[in-house]
Protein backbone atom coordinates (compact mmCIF):
# COMPACT_ATOMS: atom_id res chain seq x y z
CA UNK A 1 0.00 0.00 0.00
CA UNK A 2 2.73 2.43 1.00
CA UNK A 3 4.61 1.63 -2.19
CA UNK A 4 1.64 3.04 -4.08
CA UNK A 5 0.76 6.11 -2.02
CA UNK A 6 4.25 7.15 -0.94
CA UNK A 7 5.51 7.85 -4.49
CA UNK A 8 2.27 9.65 -5.35
CA UNK A 9 2.45 11.75 -2.19
CA UNK A 10 6.08 12.65 -2.72
CA UNK A 11 5.40 13.82 -6.28
CA UNK A 12 2.44 15.86 -5.09
CA UNK A 13 4.56 17.46 -2.40
CA UNK A 14 7.34 18.15 -4.91
CA UNK A 15 4.96 20.15 -7.12
CA UNK A 16 3.91 22.27 -4.17
CA UNK A 17 7.44 22.90 -2.91
CA UNK A 18 8.60 23.91 -6.39
CA UNK A 19 5.61 26.19 -6.77
CA UNK A 20 6.27 27.81 -3.42
CA UNK A 21 9.90 28.48 -4.37
CA UNK A 22 8.94 30.02 -7.70
CA UNK A 23 6.25 32.39 -6.60
CA UNK A 24 6.59 34.50 -9.74
CA UNK A 25 4.78 31.67 -11.52
CA UNK A 26 1.58 32.62 -9.71
CA UNK A 27 1.70 36.10 -11.19
CA UNK A 28 2.38 34.80 -14.68
CA UNK A 29 -0.60 32.48 -14.64
CA UNK A 30 -3.11 34.79 -12.97
CA UNK A 31 -2.05 37.98 -14.78
CA UNK A 32 -3.07 37.21 -18.36
CA UNK A 33 -6.61 35.96 -17.66
CA UNK A 34 -7.00 38.92 -15.31
CA UNK A 35 -6.08 41.42 -18.02
CA UNK A 36 -8.25 39.54 -20.50
CA UNK A 37 -11.16 39.66 -18.15
CA UNK A 38 -10.76 43.32 -17.27
CA UNK A 39 -10.49 44.35 -20.93
CA UNK A 40 -13.45 42.33 -22.19
CA UNK A 41 -15.50 42.83 -19.03
CA UNK A 42 -14.95 46.57 -18.76
CA UNK A 43 -15.21 46.97 -22.53
CA UNK A 44 -18.63 45.42 -22.58
CA UNK A 45 -19.41 46.89 -19.18
CA UNK A 46 -20.31 43.51 -17.73
CA UNK A 47 -17.51 42.06 -15.58
CA UNK A 48 -19.82 39.48 -14.02
CA UNK A 49 -20.68 38.04 -17.40
CA UNK A 50 -17.08 36.99 -18.12
CA UNK A 51 -15.92 36.18 -14.62
CA UNK A 52 -16.23 32.40 -14.64
CA UNK A 53 -14.67 32.27 -18.09
CA UNK A 54 -11.61 34.13 -16.82
CA UNK A 55 -11.39 31.88 -13.76
CA UNK A 56 -11.53 28.76 -15.92
CA UNK A 57 -8.85 30.27 -18.16
CA UNK A 58 -6.59 30.79 -15.13
CA UNK A 59 -7.09 27.19 -14.08
CA UNK A 60 -6.52 26.02 -17.63
CA UNK A 61 -3.26 27.94 -18.03
CA UNK A 62 -1.95 26.62 -14.75
CA UNK A 63 -2.98 23.03 -15.48
CA UNK A 64 -1.53 23.06 -18.97
CA UNK A 65 1.72 24.78 -18.03
CA UNK A 66 2.48 22.44 -15.18
CA UNK A 67 1.68 19.30 -17.16
CA UNK A 68 3.60 20.48 -20.20
CA UNK A 69 6.79 20.22 -18.12
CA UNK A 70 6.39 16.46 -18.56
CA UNK A 71 7.74 16.76 -22.08
CA UNK A 72 11.12 18.06 -21.00
CA UNK A 73 11.13 16.29 -17.67
CA UNK A 74 11.00 12.98 -19.47
CA UNK A 75 14.05 13.63 -21.56
CA UNK A 76 16.05 15.50 -19.00
CA UNK A 77 14.85 15.74 -15.48
CA UNK A 78 13.17 14.22 -12.54
CA UNK A 79 10.75 12.12 -14.57
CA UNK A 80 13.67 10.00 -15.80
CA UNK A 81 14.41 8.63 -12.37
CA UNK A 82 10.71 8.12 -11.76
CA UNK A 83 10.48 5.96 -14.85
CA UNK A 84 13.27 3.62 -13.73
CA UNK A 85 11.97 3.31 -10.17
CA UNK A 86 9.80 0.36 -9.17
CA UNK A 87 6.94 2.72 -8.20
CA UNK A 88 3.82 1.79 -10.18
CA UNK A 89 3.27 4.07 -13.16
CA UNK A 90 -0.31 4.67 -12.04
CA UNK A 91 0.97 6.00 -8.74
CA UNK A 92 3.33 8.39 -10.55
CA UNK A 93 0.51 9.57 -12.80
CA UNK A 94 -1.74 10.11 -9.82
CA UNK A 95 0.94 12.08 -7.94
CA UNK A 96 1.73 14.28 -10.91
CA UNK A 97 -1.94 14.95 -11.70
CA UNK A 98 -2.88 15.64 -8.09
CA UNK A 99 0.10 17.97 -7.72
CA UNK A 100 -0.65 19.93 -10.88
CA UNK A 101 -4.37 19.98 -10.11
CA UNK A 102 -3.67 21.35 -6.64
CA UNK A 103 -1.59 24.16 -8.12
CA UNK A 104 -4.30 24.97 -10.66
CA UNK A 105 -6.82 24.93 -7.84
CA UNK A 106 -4.75 27.30 -5.68
CA UNK A 107 -4.54 29.73 -8.58
CA UNK A 108 -8.25 29.45 -9.22
CA UNK A 109 -8.83 30.25 -5.54
CA UNK A 110 -6.50 33.25 -5.83
CA UNK A 111 -8.66 34.46 -8.71
CA UNK A 112 -11.68 34.24 -6.42
CA UNK A 113 -10.26 37.29 -4.65
CA UNK A 114 -11.44 39.37 -7.61
CA UNK A 115 -15.01 38.11 -7.28
CA UNK A 116 -16.28 41.33 -5.63
CA UNK A 117 -15.27 43.23 -8.79
CA UNK A 118 -17.64 40.96 -10.71
CA UNK A 119 -20.39 41.76 -8.26
CA UNK A 120 -20.20 38.28 -6.82
CA UNK A 121 -20.34 37.89 -3.08
CA UNK A 122 -19.59 34.50 -1.66
CA UNK A 123 -21.21 33.59 1.59
CA UNK A 124 -18.78 31.77 3.93
CA UNK A 125 -21.06 28.72 3.79
CA UNK A 126 -20.68 28.66 0.03
CA UNK A 127 -16.91 28.58 -0.03
CA UNK A 128 -16.90 24.81 0.09
CA UNK A 129 -19.01 24.10 -3.01
CA UNK A 130 -17.17 26.82 -4.96
CA UNK A 131 -13.77 25.45 -3.96
CA UNK A 132 -15.00 21.95 -4.76
CA UNK A 133 -16.18 23.01 -8.21
CA UNK A 134 -12.85 24.70 -8.93
CA UNK A 135 -11.00 21.60 -7.83
CA UNK A 136 -13.07 19.37 -10.08
CA UNK A 137 -12.36 21.64 -13.04
CA UNK A 138 -8.64 21.79 -12.17
CA UNK A 139 -8.48 18.02 -11.99
CA UNK A 140 -10.16 17.55 -15.37
CA UNK A 141 -8.04 20.13 -17.15
CA UNK A 142 -4.86 18.70 -15.64
CA UNK A 143 -5.86 15.28 -16.96
CA UNK A 144 -6.33 16.83 -20.37
CA UNK A 145 -2.93 18.53 -20.16
CA UNK A 146 -1.29 15.27 -19.18
CA UNK A 147 -2.77 13.31 -22.09
CA UNK A 148 -1.61 15.99 -24.52
CA UNK A 149 1.87 16.32 -22.99
CA UNK A 150 2.54 12.60 -22.77
CA UNK A 151 2.02 12.10 -26.48
CA UNK A 152 4.15 15.05 -27.51
CA UNK A 153 7.85 14.75 -28.24
CA UNK A 154 8.74 18.41 -27.98
CA UNK A 155 7.28 21.62 -26.65
CA UNK A 156 7.42 23.03 -30.20
CA UNK A 157 4.03 21.63 -31.17
CA UNK A 158 2.49 23.00 -28.04
CA UNK A 159 1.53 26.37 -29.50
CA UNK A 160 -0.53 24.62 -32.14
CA UNK A 161 -2.37 22.64 -29.49
CA UNK A 162 -2.99 25.79 -27.50
CA UNK A 163 -4.33 27.78 -30.44
CA UNK A 164 -6.18 25.04 -32.29
CA UNK A 165 -7.58 23.02 -29.43
CA UNK A 166 -7.45 24.58 -26.00
CA UNK A 167 -8.36 28.19 -26.72
CA UNK A 168 -11.23 27.29 -29.12
CA UNK A 169 -12.43 24.85 -26.49
CA UNK A 170 -12.45 27.65 -23.99
CA UNK A 171 -14.13 30.14 -26.34
CA UNK A 172 -16.86 27.64 -27.14
CA UNK A 173 -17.60 26.84 -23.51
CA UNK A 174 -19.97 29.69 -22.74
CA UNK A 175 -17.12 31.81 -21.43
CA UNK A 176 -17.69 34.51 -24.08
CA UNK A 177 -21.27 33.99 -25.26
CA UNK A 178 -24.16 31.86 -24.14
CA UNK A 179 -25.39 28.72 -25.78
CA UNK A 180 -28.88 30.21 -26.03
CA UNK A 181 -27.88 32.93 -28.50
CA UNK A 182 -25.36 30.88 -30.52
CA UNK A 183 -25.77 29.68 -34.11
CA UNK A 184 -26.95 26.07 -34.51
CA UNK A 185 -23.56 24.57 -35.41
CA UNK A 186 -21.77 26.42 -32.63
CA UNK A 187 -24.52 25.40 -30.24
CA UNK A 188 -23.98 21.73 -31.12
CA UNK A 189 -20.23 22.06 -30.56
CA UNK A 190 -20.83 23.77 -27.24
CA UNK A 191 -23.10 20.97 -26.17
CA UNK A 192 -20.39 18.33 -26.64
CA UNK A 193 -17.58 20.52 -25.29
CA UNK A 194 -16.83 19.26 -21.78
CA UNK A 195 -15.64 22.73 -20.78
CA UNK A 196 -19.18 24.07 -21.26
CA UNK A 197 -20.14 22.08 -18.20
CA UNK A 198 -17.25 23.51 -16.20
CA UNK A 199 -18.43 27.05 -16.93
CA UNK A 200 -22.03 26.28 -16.09
CA UNK A 201 -20.94 24.54 -12.90
CA UNK A 202 -19.02 27.64 -11.82
CA UNK A 203 -21.85 29.98 -12.80
CA UNK A 204 -24.19 27.88 -10.73
CA UNK A 205 -22.04 27.86 -7.58
CA UNK A 206 -21.28 31.60 -7.93
CA UNK A 207 -24.95 32.49 -8.58
CA UNK A 208 -24.05 33.98 -11.94
CA UNK A 209 -26.40 33.81 -14.96
CA UNK A 210 -26.07 31.15 -17.68
CA UNK A 211 -25.91 28.23 -15.28
CA UNK A 212 -27.53 26.08 -17.92
CA UNK A 213 -27.32 22.95 -18.33
CA UNK A 214 -27.88 22.65 -14.59
CA UNK A 215 -25.73 21.57 -11.65
CA UNK A 216 -26.33 17.82 -11.68
CA UNK A 217 -25.45 17.36 -15.34
CA UNK A 218 -22.49 19.77 -15.01
CA UNK A 219 -20.95 17.98 -12.05
CA UNK A 220 -21.54 14.57 -13.60
CA UNK A 221 -19.97 15.45 -16.94
CA UNK A 222 -17.00 17.32 -15.45
CA UNK A 223 -16.26 14.48 -13.02
CA UNK A 224 -16.77 11.77 -15.63
CA UNK A 225 -14.48 13.60 -18.02
CA UNK A 226 -11.83 13.93 -15.29
CA UNK A 227 -11.96 10.22 -14.46
CA UNK A 228 -11.87 9.25 -18.11
CA UNK A 229 -8.79 11.40 -18.72
CA UNK A 230 -7.01 10.05 -15.64
CA UNK A 231 -7.67 6.51 -16.82
CA UNK A 232 -6.30 7.46 -20.23
CA UNK A 233 -3.18 8.87 -18.54
CA UNK A 234 -2.70 5.63 -16.65
CA UNK A 235 -3.01 3.57 -19.82
CA UNK A 236 -0.62 5.86 -21.71
CA UNK A 237 2.00 5.80 -18.99
CA UNK A 238 1.85 2.02 -18.67
CA UNK A 239 2.70 1.45 -22.32
CA UNK A 240 6.05 -0.12 -23.06
CA UNK A 241 8.38 2.07 -25.03
CA UNK A 242 10.30 0.80 -28.02
CA UNK A 243 11.40 4.15 -29.31
CA UNK A 244 11.83 7.26 -27.20
CA UNK A 245 13.49 7.75 -23.86
CA UNK A 246 10.22 7.18 -22.08
Amino acid sequence: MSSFFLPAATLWQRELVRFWRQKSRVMGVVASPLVFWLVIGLGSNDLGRFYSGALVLTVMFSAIFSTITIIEDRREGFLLSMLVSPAPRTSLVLGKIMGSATLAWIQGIIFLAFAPLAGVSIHPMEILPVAGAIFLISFTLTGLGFVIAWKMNSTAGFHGIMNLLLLPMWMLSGSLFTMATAHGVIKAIMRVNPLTYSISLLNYTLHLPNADPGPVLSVTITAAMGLLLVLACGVLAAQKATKSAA
Partner: protein
Amino acid sequence: MIQVKNLTHRYGDRVALSNVSFEVKKGEIFGLLGPNGGGKSTLFRILSTMMVPTEGQALIAGFDVERNPGEVRRHVGVVFQTQSLDKALTVEENLRAQGHLHGLSGAILRDRMERAMEQLGLSDRRKDLVEALSGGLRRRVEIAKALLHKPQVLLMDEASTGLDPAARRELSKHVENLREGEGVTILLTTHILSEADRCDRLVLLHQGKIVAHGTPGQLRSSIGGDVVVLETADTKSLAERIEQRFGLQSSVMDGTVRVEIQNGHRFIAEVMEAFPGTIESVGLHKPTLEDVFVRETGASIE
Protein backbone atom coordinates in the same frame (compact mmCIF):
# COMPACT_ATOMS: atom_id res chain seq x y z
CA MET B 1 25.25 -10.29 -12.68
CA ILE B 2 24.39 -8.89 -16.10
CA GLN B 3 23.82 -11.14 -19.10
CA VAL B 4 23.19 -9.72 -22.52
CA LYS B 5 22.28 -12.27 -25.16
CA ASN B 6 22.00 -11.54 -28.88
CA LEU B 7 20.50 -8.14 -28.32
CA THR B 8 19.33 -6.35 -31.45
CA HIS B 9 17.47 -3.09 -31.65
CA ARG B 10 16.11 -1.20 -34.63
CA TYR B 11 14.61 2.25 -34.87
CA GLY B 12 12.51 1.76 -37.97
CA ASP B 13 15.06 0.63 -40.56
CA ARG B 14 18.08 1.88 -38.72
CA VAL B 15 19.91 -0.80 -36.79
CA ALA B 16 21.18 0.63 -33.52
CA LEU B 17 22.32 -2.62 -31.94
CA SER B 18 23.23 -5.73 -33.81
CA ASN B 19 23.48 -9.08 -32.06
CA VAL B 20 25.30 -7.85 -28.98
CA SER B 21 26.22 -10.37 -26.28
CA PHE B 22 28.38 -10.07 -23.17
CA GLU B 23 28.40 -10.88 -19.46
CA VAL B 24 29.33 -8.82 -16.45
CA LYS B 25 30.46 -10.60 -13.29
CA LYS B 26 29.56 -9.61 -9.77
CA GLY B 27 31.69 -6.79 -8.40
CA GLU B 28 33.13 -5.83 -11.77
CA ILE B 29 33.49 -2.36 -13.20
CA PHE B 30 32.53 -2.95 -16.80
CA GLY B 31 32.79 -0.38 -19.57
CA LEU B 32 31.00 0.15 -22.85
CA LEU B 33 33.40 2.24 -24.91
CA GLY B 34 32.50 3.75 -28.24
CA PRO B 35 31.79 6.93 -30.12
CA ASN B 36 28.47 8.75 -29.83
CA GLY B 37 25.93 6.96 -31.98
CA GLY B 38 27.75 3.66 -31.57
CA GLY B 39 24.86 2.02 -29.75
CA LYS B 40 25.86 2.69 -26.15
CA SER B 41 22.81 4.78 -25.32
CA THR B 42 20.44 2.31 -26.90
CA LEU B 43 21.99 -0.50 -24.89
CA PHE B 44 21.82 1.63 -21.76
CA ARG B 45 18.13 2.40 -22.27
CA ILE B 46 17.35 -1.26 -22.71
CA LEU B 47 19.29 -2.28 -19.59
CA SER B 48 17.69 0.48 -17.53
CA THR B 49 14.20 -0.77 -18.57
CA MET B 50 13.39 2.45 -20.40
CA MET B 51 13.01 0.67 -23.69
CA VAL B 52 12.14 -2.81 -24.94
CA PRO B 53 14.63 -4.43 -27.34
CA THR B 54 13.55 -5.57 -30.81
CA GLU B 55 15.23 -8.96 -30.37
CA GLY B 56 17.32 -10.80 -27.86
CA GLN B 57 17.41 -10.82 -24.11
CA ALA B 58 19.06 -9.02 -21.22
CA LEU B 59 19.10 -10.26 -17.63
CA ILE B 60 20.13 -8.25 -14.61
CA ALA B 61 20.47 -10.02 -11.25
CA GLY B 62 18.66 -12.90 -12.95
CA PHE B 63 15.63 -10.85 -14.03
CA ASP B 64 14.63 -10.22 -17.61
CA VAL B 65 14.52 -6.49 -18.39
CA GLU B 66 11.65 -6.96 -20.79
CA ARG B 67 9.46 -9.40 -18.89
CA ASN B 68 10.22 -8.36 -15.35
CA PRO B 69 11.16 -4.66 -15.37
CA GLY B 70 9.77 -4.14 -11.86
CA GLU B 71 12.27 -6.56 -10.29
CA VAL B 72 15.09 -5.19 -12.41
CA ARG B 73 14.32 -1.66 -11.21
CA ARG B 74 14.50 -2.86 -7.60
CA HIS B 75 18.01 -4.22 -8.14
CA VAL B 76 19.45 -1.52 -10.34
CA GLY B 77 20.52 2.05 -9.68
CA VAL B 78 20.59 4.29 -12.73
CA VAL B 79 22.71 7.40 -13.26
CA PHE B 80 21.68 9.23 -16.40
CA GLN B 81 23.79 11.25 -18.75
CA THR B 82 21.28 14.05 -18.56
CA GLN B 83 20.37 15.53 -15.26
CA SER B 84 17.62 13.76 -13.37
CA LEU B 85 17.65 15.96 -10.28
CA ASP B 86 15.05 18.54 -9.41
CA LYS B 87 17.04 21.77 -9.35
CA ALA B 88 14.48 23.62 -7.28
CA LEU B 89 14.91 21.12 -4.44
CA THR B 90 17.82 20.66 -2.03
CA VAL B 91 20.18 17.69 -2.08
CA GLU B 92 18.34 16.13 0.84
CA GLU B 93 14.91 16.72 -0.67
CA ASN B 94 15.98 15.10 -3.93
CA LEU B 95 17.27 12.06 -2.07
CA ARG B 96 14.16 11.81 0.07
CA ALA B 97 11.87 11.96 -2.96
CA GLN B 98 13.89 9.24 -4.64
CA GLY B 99 13.70 7.09 -1.50
CA HIS B 100 9.93 7.48 -1.49
CA LEU B 101 9.76 6.35 -5.11
CA HIS B 102 11.40 3.17 -3.92
CA GLY B 103 8.94 2.82 -1.05
CA LEU B 104 11.54 3.72 1.59
CA SER B 105 10.59 5.93 4.51
CA GLY B 106 11.26 6.75 8.15
CA ALA B 107 14.43 5.70 9.96
CA ILE B 108 15.55 3.34 7.19
CA LEU B 109 15.42 6.09 4.61
CA ARG B 110 17.24 8.51 6.94
CA ASP B 111 20.04 5.99 7.48
CA ARG B 112 20.36 5.28 3.79
CA MET B 113 20.47 8.98 2.98
CA GLU B 114 23.15 9.60 5.61
CA ARG B 115 25.22 6.74 4.29
CA ALA B 116 24.89 7.74 0.64
CA MET B 117 25.75 11.37 1.36
CA GLU B 118 28.73 10.30 3.43
CA GLN B 119 30.00 7.91 0.75
CA LEU B 120 29.89 10.61 -1.89
CA GLY B 121 31.15 13.44 0.29
CA LEU B 122 27.90 15.39 0.24
CA SER B 123 27.06 15.58 3.92
CA ASP B 124 27.92 19.26 4.30
CA ARG B 125 25.96 20.21 1.16
CA ARG B 126 22.72 18.54 2.15
CA LYS B 127 20.75 21.77 2.59
CA ASP B 128 21.97 23.33 -0.67
CA LEU B 129 19.64 23.74 -3.61
CA VAL B 130 20.80 21.57 -6.50
CA GLU B 131 20.91 24.55 -8.84
CA ALA B 132 23.64 26.04 -6.65
CA LEU B 133 25.92 23.00 -7.03
CA SER B 134 28.78 22.51 -9.47
CA GLY B 135 28.60 19.88 -12.22
CA GLY B 136 30.80 17.46 -10.32
CA LEU B 137 28.74 17.72 -7.15
CA ARG B 138 25.51 17.25 -9.07
CA ARG B 139 26.90 14.04 -10.55
CA ARG B 140 27.67 12.83 -7.06
CA VAL B 141 24.13 13.63 -5.93
CA GLU B 142 22.88 11.62 -8.92
CA ILE B 143 24.96 8.66 -7.77
CA ALA B 144 23.91 9.03 -4.14
CA LYS B 145 20.32 9.04 -5.37
CA ALA B 146 20.85 5.87 -7.37
CA LEU B 147 22.29 4.08 -4.31
CA LEU B 148 19.48 4.64 -1.80
CA HIS B 149 17.72 1.35 -2.46
CA LYS B 150 21.01 -0.59 -2.17
CA PRO B 151 21.11 -1.78 -5.76
CA GLN B 152 23.33 -4.71 -6.71
CA VAL B 153 24.05 -3.09 -10.04
CA LEU B 154 24.79 0.53 -10.86
CA LEU B 155 24.30 1.64 -14.46
CA MET B 156 26.04 4.88 -15.39
CA ASP B 157 25.58 6.61 -18.72
CA GLU B 158 28.46 8.93 -19.67
CA ALA B 159 28.59 9.92 -16.04
CA SER B 160 31.71 12.05 -16.39
CA THR B 161 30.61 14.02 -19.46
CA GLY B 162 31.05 17.73 -18.96
CA LEU B 163 33.33 17.34 -15.93
CA ASP B 164 36.85 18.70 -15.78
CA PRO B 165 39.67 16.15 -15.32
CA ALA B 166 39.91 16.76 -11.58
CA ALA B 167 36.19 16.21 -11.01
CA ARG B 168 36.38 13.17 -13.26
CA ARG B 169 39.17 11.62 -11.20
CA GLU B 170 37.25 12.35 -8.03
CA LEU B 171 34.18 10.65 -9.50
CA SER B 172 36.21 7.59 -10.48
CA LYS B 173 37.55 7.37 -6.97
CA HIS B 174 34.02 7.36 -5.55
CA VAL B 175 32.95 4.69 -8.03
CA GLU B 176 35.95 2.55 -7.11
CA ASN B 177 35.10 2.93 -3.41
CA LEU B 178 31.55 1.78 -4.04
CA ARG B 179 32.77 -1.38 -5.61
CA GLU B 180 35.23 -2.00 -2.77
CA GLY B 181 32.90 -1.05 0.06
CA GLU B 182 29.53 -2.31 -1.12
CA GLY B 183 30.47 -4.88 -3.74
CA VAL B 184 28.28 -3.09 -6.27
CA THR B 185 28.60 -4.24 -9.87
CA ILE B 186 29.06 -1.24 -12.13
CA LEU B 187 28.34 -0.92 -15.82
CA LEU B 188 29.29 2.39 -17.37
CA THR B 189 29.21 3.82 -20.85
CA THR B 190 31.92 6.24 -21.92
CA HIS B 191 33.76 7.70 -24.83
CA ILE B 192 36.58 8.92 -22.63
CA LEU B 193 39.70 6.77 -22.83
CA SER B 194 41.07 7.46 -19.38
CA GLU B 195 37.78 6.40 -17.89
CA ALA B 196 37.64 3.23 -19.99
CA ASP B 197 41.18 2.43 -18.84
CA ARG B 198 40.00 2.27 -15.25
CA CYS B 199 37.42 -0.45 -16.00
CA ASP B 200 38.13 -4.09 -15.17
CA ARG B 201 36.83 -5.20 -18.54
CA LEU B 202 35.20 -3.51 -21.46
CA VAL B 203 33.62 -3.95 -24.83
CA LEU B 204 34.20 -1.62 -27.77
CA LEU B 205 30.99 -0.76 -29.59
CA HIS B 206 30.93 0.56 -33.11
CA GLN B 207 27.86 0.94 -35.31
CA GLY B 208 25.89 -1.28 -32.97
CA LYS B 209 28.37 -4.13 -32.97
CA ILE B 210 30.97 -5.30 -30.49
CA VAL B 211 34.30 -4.91 -32.24
CA ALA B 212 36.55 -5.96 -29.35
CA HIS B 213 36.33 -7.04 -25.74
CA GLY B 214 38.67 -7.81 -22.87
CA THR B 215 40.58 -6.07 -20.09
CA PRO B 216 42.17 -2.75 -21.03
CA GLY B 217 45.57 -4.48 -20.78
CA GLN B 218 44.54 -7.36 -23.06
CA LEU B 219 43.08 -4.98 -25.59
CA ARG B 220 46.18 -2.83 -25.64
CA SER B 221 48.54 -5.77 -25.89
CA SER B 222 46.54 -7.12 -28.82
CA ILE B 223 48.51 -4.49 -30.66
CA GLY B 224 52.08 -5.71 -30.70
CA GLY B 225 54.79 -3.30 -29.64
CA ASP B 226 54.42 0.36 -30.50
CA VAL B 227 52.19 2.63 -32.53
CA VAL B 228 53.96 4.97 -34.92
CA VAL B 229 51.99 7.92 -36.23
CA LEU B 230 53.29 9.68 -39.34
CA GLU B 231 51.96 12.98 -40.53
CA THR B 232 52.18 13.71 -44.24
CA ALA B 233 50.45 15.60 -47.05
CA ASP B 234 49.51 12.53 -49.09
CA THR B 235 48.58 9.84 -46.59
CA LYS B 236 47.30 7.35 -49.14
CA SER B 237 50.44 7.18 -51.18
CA LEU B 238 52.62 6.98 -48.09
CA ALA B 239 50.56 4.07 -46.81
CA GLU B 240 50.95 2.29 -50.14
CA ARG B 241 54.66 2.87 -50.24
CA ILE B 242 55.10 1.61 -46.69
CA GLU B 243 53.28 -1.57 -47.64
CA GLN B 244 55.48 -2.07 -50.74
CA ARG B 245 58.71 -1.32 -49.01
CA PHE B 246 58.22 -2.86 -45.55
CA GLY B 247 55.30 -5.22 -46.10
CA LEU B 248 53.39 -3.50 -43.28
CA GLN B 249 49.67 -2.80 -43.04
CA SER B 250 48.90 0.72 -41.94
CA SER B 251 45.70 2.68 -41.29
CA VAL B 252 44.99 6.17 -42.55
CA MET B 253 43.08 8.59 -40.38
CA ASP B 254 42.78 12.38 -40.05
CA GLY B 255 45.84 13.18 -42.17
CA THR B 256 48.03 10.59 -40.44
CA VAL B 257 49.30 7.14 -41.23
CA ARG B 258 49.39 4.74 -38.28
CA VAL B 259 51.60 1.70 -38.16
CA GLU B 260 51.64 -0.95 -35.42
CA ILE B 261 55.10 -2.39 -35.03
CA GLN B 262 57.62 -3.91 -32.62
CA ASN B 263 60.62 -1.69 -31.91
CA GLY B 264 59.00 1.40 -33.34
CA HIS B 265 62.11 3.52 -32.87
CA ARG B 266 64.00 1.48 -35.48
CA PHE B 267 61.11 1.68 -37.91
CA ILE B 268 61.07 5.46 -37.54
CA ALA B 269 64.72 5.68 -38.58
CA GLU B 270 64.11 3.38 -41.54
CA VAL B 271 60.98 5.08 -42.76
CA MET B 272 62.59 8.51 -42.56
CA GLU B 273 65.54 7.26 -44.57
CA ALA B 274 63.30 5.56 -47.11
CA PHE B 275 61.05 8.54 -47.90
CA PRO B 276 63.05 11.66 -47.20
CA GLY B 277 61.11 14.90 -47.21
CA THR B 278 57.63 13.38 -47.35
CA ILE B 279 56.99 13.00 -43.62
CA GLU B 280 56.14 16.17 -41.73
CA SER B 281 56.07 14.81 -38.21
CA VAL B 282 56.58 11.55 -36.40
CA GLY B 283 55.09 10.22 -33.18
CA LEU B 284 55.53 7.03 -31.23
CA HIS B 285 53.45 5.75 -28.32
CA LYS B 286 52.51 2.59 -26.48
CA PRO B 287 49.14 1.29 -27.71
CA THR B 288 46.05 2.96 -26.23
CA LEU B 289 42.43 1.88 -26.38
CA GLU B 290 42.01 4.48 -29.09
CA ASP B 291 44.55 2.55 -31.20
CA VAL B 292 42.61 -0.65 -30.65
CA PHE B 293 39.46 1.12 -31.73
CA VAL B 294 41.12 2.60 -34.79
CA ARG B 295 42.46 -0.77 -35.82
CA GLU B 296 39.10 -2.51 -35.46
CA THR B 297 36.97 0.15 -37.09
CA GLY B 298 39.15 2.59 -38.99
CA ALA B 299 37.36 5.35 -37.10
CA SER B 300 38.20 7.45 -34.09
CA ILE B 301 36.33 7.34 -30.78
CA GLU B 302 36.15 11.02 -29.99
